[in-house]
């Protein structure tokens, strides 16, 4: 029987080899990226319709003159949020939750309205102008259905990307965090425990989430938070406008013919 699954990505183990990106592209038959120099070893740029894994190269200046730049690498991916913003706004129900509790875009249902792209707080979803649909990581749904690990986790040579049943993988993350804290790495933290009801792709980070282009826990909010204030603001405006109309259009001493 299918059970909820998860990715645990440990940035302390990532060496930036991009094997995950290559395996993802190969398994999912995603197109190559155009060759261009971006001023960094990060020549993928961002997650989009053609890049479902993206190894971020975070370069930060240090005070050491011999090593002026410190690198941190992180293999980013769709977070498959428990409370998913994309799933919430999708007007066609093209975005569904699978039996593995992951978030999946049905390509034969999506009509390319791009509301999910506006909603995703992680900038994960891209628009494929060839297919006319929104696309993102499927968590290798086809592999999961055949009891195979996702391609990226299979290819990762350092075990930076771990895959497994969600409960087990969360326990693995907690143990790893405790080990790092014992070793004195007090800045290590788990990202994805609380955000959006718990992420199915969560991370062990060594800095605040914003450094990795992830919204902080306080900023990780759902689009639907603006439904009531938005409609309420419009309703109050409608009432004021109706009163304005009454004042402007009222009869002024005119009689019925």
């Amino acid at each position, binding site marked *: 029987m299918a059970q909820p699954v998860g990715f645990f990505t440990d940035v302390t183990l990532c060496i930036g080899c991009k094997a995950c990106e290559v395996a993802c592209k190969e398994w999912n038959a995603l197109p190559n990226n155009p060759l261009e120099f971006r001023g960094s070893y990060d020549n993928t740029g961002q997650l989009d319709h053609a890049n479902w894994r993206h190894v971020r190269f975070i370069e930060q200046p240090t005070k050491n003159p011999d090593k002026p730049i410190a690198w941190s690498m992180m293999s980013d991916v769709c977070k498959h949020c428990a409370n998913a913003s994309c799933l919430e706004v999708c007007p066609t129900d093209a975005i569904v939750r699978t039996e593995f509790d992951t978030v999946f875009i049905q390509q034969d249902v999506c*009509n390319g309205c791009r509301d999910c792209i506006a909603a995703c707080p992680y900038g994960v979803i891209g628009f494929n102008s060839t297919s006319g649909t929104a696309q993102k990581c499927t968590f290798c749904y086809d592999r999961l259905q055949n009891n195979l690990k996702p391609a990226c986790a299979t290819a990762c040579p350092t075990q930076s990307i771990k895959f497994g049943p969600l409960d087990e993988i969360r326990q693995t993350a907690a143990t790893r965090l405790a080990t790092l804290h014992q070793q004195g790495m007090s800045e290590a933290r788990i990202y994805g425990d609380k955000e959006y009801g718990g992420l199915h792709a969560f991370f062990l980070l060594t800095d605040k989430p914003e450094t990795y282009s992830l919204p902080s826990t306080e900023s990780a909010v759902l689009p639907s938070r603006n439904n009531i204030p938005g409609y309420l603001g419009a309703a109050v405006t409608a009432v004021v406008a109706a009163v304005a109309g009454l004042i402007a259009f009222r009869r002024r001493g005119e009689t019925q013919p």
Partner: protein
Amino acid sequence: MPGEHFVVAPGWAWYILLYFFFAGISGGAFVIGTMLRLWGSPTDAAASRLAFIISFPLLLVCPILLTLDLGQPARFWHMLVDVGSGAPAFKAYSPMSLGVWGLTLFGLFSFVMFLGAVGEGGYLRWRVLAGAGRVMGSAVGKAFMVIGAIFGFFVAAYTGVLLAVSNQPVWSDTWTLGGLFLASGLSGAAACILLLSRQRREASVTDGKLMEADRYFIILELVLIALFLITVGGVISKVLGGGWILLWLVVLIGTLVPLIAEFRPTLVRQLPPVVVPALVLVGVLALRAVIIFSAQA
């Protein structure tokens, strides 16, 4: 929390801008037509008819623009029918889903009132239209108009809520967009009726009332623009920076000139009468353009 976004822009551009513009004017025109009929004098009936006659053709453009903007235009119907179950596809907390249904239902009201206005005005001498025209003045007709006006308010306003219900910078940082688009849509609709009433003498007797209403809508719009700029907080530079200030200038001209025309008429006496409503309409378009494009830049 405003000011912290790691998102990708959805790439909503010209089709969406024009859709928001026409939806605002169409919804606003229906509301104004209804208010004139409910609260105005019998001489305002011609302007009311004009409002209903404007509303429907502008609304007809909207689904075309929406469909053209889709990556898969042939699947527009997926917004209305759940492909899996065949049941209606409706999600109350998705403004896009709600909006498509609102647009569809408003289309029904707008179409009927269009026929009624054509019949009442005698523009087409078909018996069925004459009957529809007579119903407009009845209690049933007025109740129908009021329900339609609620949908009109919705269609003019929900586009702002649609932007807000996202995680995009600017759009999701403020609650004002629904009200702002509504006020601006009403102002644009009043300007549109004023522009067209110059061709019809019987409708132009309402021009004074329409100009007064437009001033109120513009004041409401200016208050909401101020609230918008206050509420976006940390990302204000995104909407005001760079070349966007030029579009805000167009918005200001479109809102301030009608007010100057009322309170300092000598300053704009030289302008031909069509200029003021035309500036209002350009301002309504510019407001939507600056909000849609600056947030995605």
